[in-house]
């Protein structure tokens, strides 16, 4: 079966509109997480990564009609537009469109600014496909916080089954009052910027973002590329909102991935974790990673830079991983203080150079879902 590659990408976040701007911001130690008080629901201030509407409109006005699109649509359209600019000869009749989102335009609920069907997740797909002229009906993956990476897996499989030549995978979610109030009702929102895996972590910070990635077979020669190797999902079969105490599903997804690809833990150069900074999630991850023999692999969570962008997060983290591998660099796990999980982990505490050939990306979410994915550097001969 032919290998597919991560060919081009874009991240639209408070850290910047474009992957390179995001990478540079992270290298400089910046964060999207700022104190906000402007959402009507939340009386107290809270930390979140929120995209400035004026900046977004300024960027979007160059490609589309500002009044015709919701905030999330503008973000997502911008990200796909950026990727397509690098691939002007892409045949959209043979390119599939897969979109990952948990809540899409949920911030429009009850506002009446757009037609009612704009709340439908499939409508988001329709709007995006029409804007660019994707011919095939878009596919929407809505599988909680693993959606972004699961969309890559679906895209890869649909290319390998012969349905498409390439797939554009996009993801996006907003910081909405809906989601903020929901996590707050669980008392899961941190009063400070989130601190994944730290002993003083107090919960998650939310962050909005959109991202896009083109995957497909290699083009050109003599390049270093990042290949999509394989991904496995596994359900905890334990609880719909609480992570498994034994890390069962995450452990299963990792161990099945290792076995199917005949990879030993020591061959993995980097682990891009989910790391939401809730007490239970990070503890669960540490247990699963240890059970899988990954305690020595350099690991980080990017939530301290972006906050949790839900359906977009695993796609953004895959994009950052791709560039980390191309640049042979590891990013520090921002806001980490001292280890606050019961099992040892090799948390990356400072940006540093490191030869990266094989990376493992993991994600977990509500509904008990877990995902583990291998990305590998492939050098042309």
């Amino acid at each position: 079966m032919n290998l597919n590659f991560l060919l081009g990408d874009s991240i639209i976040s408070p850290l910047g509109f474009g992957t390179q701007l995001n990478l540079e911001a992270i290298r400089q130690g910046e964060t999207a997480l700022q104190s906000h008080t402007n959402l009507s629901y939340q009386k107290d201030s809270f930390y979140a990564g929120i995209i400035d509407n004026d900046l977004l409109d300024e960027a979007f006005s160059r490609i589309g009609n500002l009044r015709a699109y919701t905030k999330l649509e503008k973000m997502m359209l911008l990200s796909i537009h950026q990727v397509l600019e690098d691939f002007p000869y892409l045949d959209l009749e043979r390119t599939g469109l897969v979109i990952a989102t948990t809540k899409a335009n949920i911030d429009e609920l009850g506002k009446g600014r757009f037609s009612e069907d704009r709340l439908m997740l499939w409508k988001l797909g329709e709007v995006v496909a029409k804007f660019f002229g994707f011919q095939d009906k878009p596919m929407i993956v809505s599988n909680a916080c693993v959606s972004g990476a699961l969309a890559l897996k679906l895209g890869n499989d649909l290319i390998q089954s012969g349905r498409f030549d390439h797939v554009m995978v996009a993801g996006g979610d907003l910081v909405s009052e809906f989601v903020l109030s929901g996590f707050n009702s669980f008392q899961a929102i941190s009063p400070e910027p989130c601190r994944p895996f730290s002993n003083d972590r107090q919960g998650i910070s939310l962050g909005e973002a959109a991202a896009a990635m083109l995957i497909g077979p290699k083009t050109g020669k003599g390049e270093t590329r990042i290949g999509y190797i394989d991904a496995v999902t596994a359900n905890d079969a334990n609880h719909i909102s609480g992570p498994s105490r034994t890390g069962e599903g995450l452990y299963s997804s990792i161990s099945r991935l290792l076995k199917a690809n005949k990879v030993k833990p020591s061959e993995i150069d980097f682990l891009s974790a989910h790391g939401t900074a809730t007490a239970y999630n990070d503890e669960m991850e540490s247990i699963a990673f240890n059970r899988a023999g990954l305690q020595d692999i350099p690991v980080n969570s990017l939530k301290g830079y972006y906050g949790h962008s839900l359906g977009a997060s695993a796609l953004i983290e895959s994009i950052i991983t791709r560039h980390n591998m191309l640049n042979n660099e590891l990013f520090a796990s921002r806001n980490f203080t001292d280890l606050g999980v019961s099992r040892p982990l090799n948390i990356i505490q400072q940006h540093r150079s490191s030869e990266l050939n094989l990376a493992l990306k993991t994600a977990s979410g509500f509904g008990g879902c877990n995902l583990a994915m291998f990305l590998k550097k492939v050098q042309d001969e």
Partner: protein
Amino acid sequence: MNKKYYIKDYVILRQGRLIRNGEVLLEAGNPELKDFLRKIYKSFGMRYPKFFKMDDLSRLGFLAAEILFDQEKPEADTALIFANSSSCLETDKAYSKTMSGFPSPSLFVYTLPNIVLGEISIRHGLRSENLFLVQDRFEPTTMIDYSHSLLNKAKASNVLCGWVDLHNTDYDVFLWQIAASGRLEHNEEELNKIYLPE
């Protein structure tokens, strides 16, 4: 690569009727959704306290899976590939009504469509592959392609596919299992024939 798969068993819940493999097991006129759900739960003698905590979307998927697995317990690596049109919009609206007072955590957890996969996985101990898709209408192409991909790559030994939609008071449920042998080939034509009989 082009190995053939077949439709093994299927269940349909629609307009007060419960159908398994073409046979009408329950005909309840056209009752309110809650009455229909209760009737199925009772007439199959189910005892599962978690059922009463679920939202209606999860109840629909859960009951359909119960009836499908009634005769044969699923293998632990049975993948779940589900889709619908309205995501969990009914529960989104119900939750949003609580936002101005005391936001309800028990409603909020059901504001993700893939929670129904979690409920079915918990019930049957399935630590398997999951995918939840949203599409404007029933169109099984992607579910077929992806389920065959999982089977061909040995990521699952069986696949349960499901269309579980709830919008306003309209519900539409069609679950089917895939097998390596059988009478009906697992393709769009056969699935559309079962989903929308002429």
